[in-house]
């Protein structure tokens, strides 16, 4: 009898597995942003995240609501002042090469990011870590140099993937991780083939094979999608989506992101060292109109705070255009006849010139005479940005605290507006110490209000991402790239 039950349950198990067998191929493109220097090393500058996100896992990942969710870590807690964090790791995880995932791998992966010699761009996300220690095989302790109540948010960074201990020298080509897909062939400039990892901890993926194809040209990627050569393209423009919307072969996902574009007025030079001028140049912007003109409506108005629309710390700010007040502020600051400014843009970001020209029109009403200067794309970041008085900027979303620390803190690495404000710095330090969520939120909200009051950066909007998807694809999470559960996808 017992034998019979075993047999029946075994048969049921087999049947269950058979129905969930991965099948089909899902194809997408990547921009080939780093050409021949492309790499599978998640923390290298040349990482192809469209591949690493499918083959490697993080300790903590963003859930569908954007809040931290357990991935390779199952739970975490902080000590009283949030300087020491303890992470419990998931049991029974194996890397694609068969080795077991343990605390030592976490220690190795994080120390690799923190190593000043490697100088990884990901380092700034976690540079508050002073020590990573394995308490036992399945527990890791992270010590910080500052209280930081939102440490798990930082570990959600898309680059902080867990690698096998000692695999740093080979990871760029092997891509050995713990994710739902394994690398079969890596060819950044051609087609990279990933196959389903049947041992993935959340279950076998829905598709058997993924192809990530390098197509540098945006128009070519759209054509590939339209012609059925790829199944998803995550960078559709508002103009392009018309081509997809009319067809039942495609659908479009509309995903608000925290990616922002803006104009930076250096706060350390005349006339922008006067806070009233800074207020005036930002106050003249009609942000609703900028969203409509520059983005074809596919964006969400921001009030000069680099915080994404669905971030838990987003402040509910209002920043309507006010020409009269801007004029008054300029007069008060000693510029009754207005000011002349050169705004530097490049086609590096295709929307910058449109943004600058639209801003030019709006600012003219308040006597701000904008001269749009087209700088060459080559060398824009090294010769123009952070050098000229007014430049266009763009950033990809990041947690609010990280954005403040990387771009607005007095000694921030990329303090593009040379913004120095002791009160703001103090707020940031206080927020990181505060363990109570509501109180912490209040501080971050106040910090955003403070930026709207004093900053030198005009952030008129965050852009909305349009994802064109072939209708043969189902179960693609309608969230940001970072949070998509790739193992869920199925194809017809």
């Amino acid at each position, binding site marked *: 009898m017992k034998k019979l039950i075993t047999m029946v349950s075994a048969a049921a198990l087999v049947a269950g597995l058979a129905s969930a067998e991965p099948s089909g191929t899902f194809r997408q493109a990547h921009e080939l942003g780093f050409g*021949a220097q492309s790499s599978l090393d998640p923390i290298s*500058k040349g990482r192809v995240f469209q591949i690493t996100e499918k083959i490697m896992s993080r300790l903590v990942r963003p859930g569908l609501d954007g809040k931290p969710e357990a991935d390779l870590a199952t739970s975490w807690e902080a000590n009283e002042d949030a300087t020491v964090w303890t992470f419990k790791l998931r049991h029974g995880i194996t890397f694609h090469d068969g080795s077991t995932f343990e605390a030592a791998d976490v220690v190795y992966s994080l120390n690799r990011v923190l190593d000043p010699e490697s*100088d990884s*761009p990901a380092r700034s996300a976690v540079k508050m870590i002073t020590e990573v220690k394995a308490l036992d095989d399945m527990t890791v302790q992270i010590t910080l140099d500052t209280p930081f109540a939102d440490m798990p948010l930082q570990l959600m960074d898309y680059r902080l993937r867990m690698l096998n201990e000692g695999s740093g020298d080979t990871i760029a080509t092997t891509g050995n991780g713990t994710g739902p897909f394994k690398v079969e062939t890596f*060819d950044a400039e*051609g*087609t990279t083939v990933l196959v389903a990892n049947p041992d993935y901890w959340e279950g076998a993926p829905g598709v058997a094979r993924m192809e990530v194809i390098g197509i540098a040209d945006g128009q*070519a990627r759209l054509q*590939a999608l339209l012609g059925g050569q790829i199944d998803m393209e995550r960078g559709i423009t508002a103009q392009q989506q018309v081509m997809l919307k009319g067809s039942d072969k495609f659908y479009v996902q509309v995903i608000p992101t925290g990616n922002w574009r803006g104009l930076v007025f250096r706060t350390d030079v005349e006339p922008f060292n006067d806070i009233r001028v800074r207020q005036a140049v930002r106050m003249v912007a009609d942000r609703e109109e900028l969203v409509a003109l520059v983005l074809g409506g596919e964006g969400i108005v921001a009030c000069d705070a680099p915080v994404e629309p669905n971030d838990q710390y987003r402040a509910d700010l209002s920043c309507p255009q006010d020409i009269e007040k801007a004029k008054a502020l300029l007069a008060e600051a000693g510029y009754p006849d207005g000011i002349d400014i050169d705004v530097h843009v490049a086609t590096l970001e295709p929307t910058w010139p449109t943004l600058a020209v639209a801003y030019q029109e709006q600012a003219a009403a308040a006597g701000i005479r904008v001269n749009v200067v087209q700088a060459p794309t080559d060398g824009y970041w090294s010769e123009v940005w952070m050098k000229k008085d007014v430049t266009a900027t763009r950033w990809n979303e990041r947690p609010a605290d990280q954005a403040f620390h990387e771009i607005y803190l007095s000694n921030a690495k990329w303090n593009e507006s040379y913004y120095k404000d002791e009160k703001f710095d103090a707020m940031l330090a206080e927020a990181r110490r505060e363990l109570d969520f509501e109180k912490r939120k209040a501080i971050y909200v106040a910090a955003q209000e403070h930026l709207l009051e004093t900053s030198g950066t005009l952030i008129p909007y965050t852009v909305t991402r349009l994802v064109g998807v072939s209708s043969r694809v189902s179960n693609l999470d309608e969230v940001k790239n970072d949070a998509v559960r790739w193992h869920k996808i199925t194809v017809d």
Partner: protein
Amino acid sequence: MLRMLLRRMFLGATTVVIVSMIIFAGVEMLPGDACTAFLEREAQGKLLENCREAQGLNRPAVERYIDWASSAVRGDLGISANGQKSIAELVGDRLANSLLLAACSLALGVPLAIFLGVVTGLWRDRPVDLILSTLTIFAMTIPEFVSATVLILVFSVWLGWLPGIVLTSASAPAAEFFPEIMLPVLVLTMVMTAHILRMVRSSVIEVMAGDYIQMATLKGVPYWRIVFRHALPNALLPAINVVALTIAWLLGGVVVIEVVFNYPGLGRMMIDAISDRDLPVVQAIALIVATVYVCVNLSADILTMIANPRLRTLHMRRG
């Protein structure tokens, strides 16, 4: 004949050297270098220093050029600044792909162009000539990227007959490029055919109006015999030069087509290398394309001379 040949080869080599210097100076003059291009806004501090040191960008430009030139003469094109791969290997794949694209377009386009050119020339001002000549005007004047996009829209998106974009990787064997290569070949054929056709047409018309053709007609030689024995051999001579230029254009100048179709050829590699400031790769490609131009023109002249004995003596010094 031999002296002239040597002279031409020497001039060709000089051209290649000058081109390589101009290209080097040009890329050098662009703002930014390989490191700032790769690191973008992280191009500062230690990261930038490490990168410049690793790629030897600290040394003066002249020194780097001489270094590169002396190894290039020995046949060593160096290592790609970016991917740390051998350039000979990288460029070799792309060159093979460009050759494949050129060969397919030529195989389709040249016979077609010559045939249609003869037809329009012989039936001058008849409906067939008018229709074809009008079409060629369109094929020549519509920019390639427009006709390419229209063809993709029709054949790939609406009809779904052909793939719109080339997804095959650069190092794949030639056979794998079918059927993806068909649309780019079609576009190139259209442009190329138009140019050669017009050349052939006017030369057929000119020859057919010649005295010796009239003489042959008066003698009572059958029309088709006149066309094939007397007219065509003379009429096709000028086409050789046009075909030669077309070959050179196909190998280095079809950047737009390669980008629109994502075709992994030399032209696209050149553009990518320039934006990455990958000087060794830019230099290597410039060298190849310049050499191709020089060689193809030289062989076209030689062919013309062989086909036309008068040139061998009369215009020997013109070279």
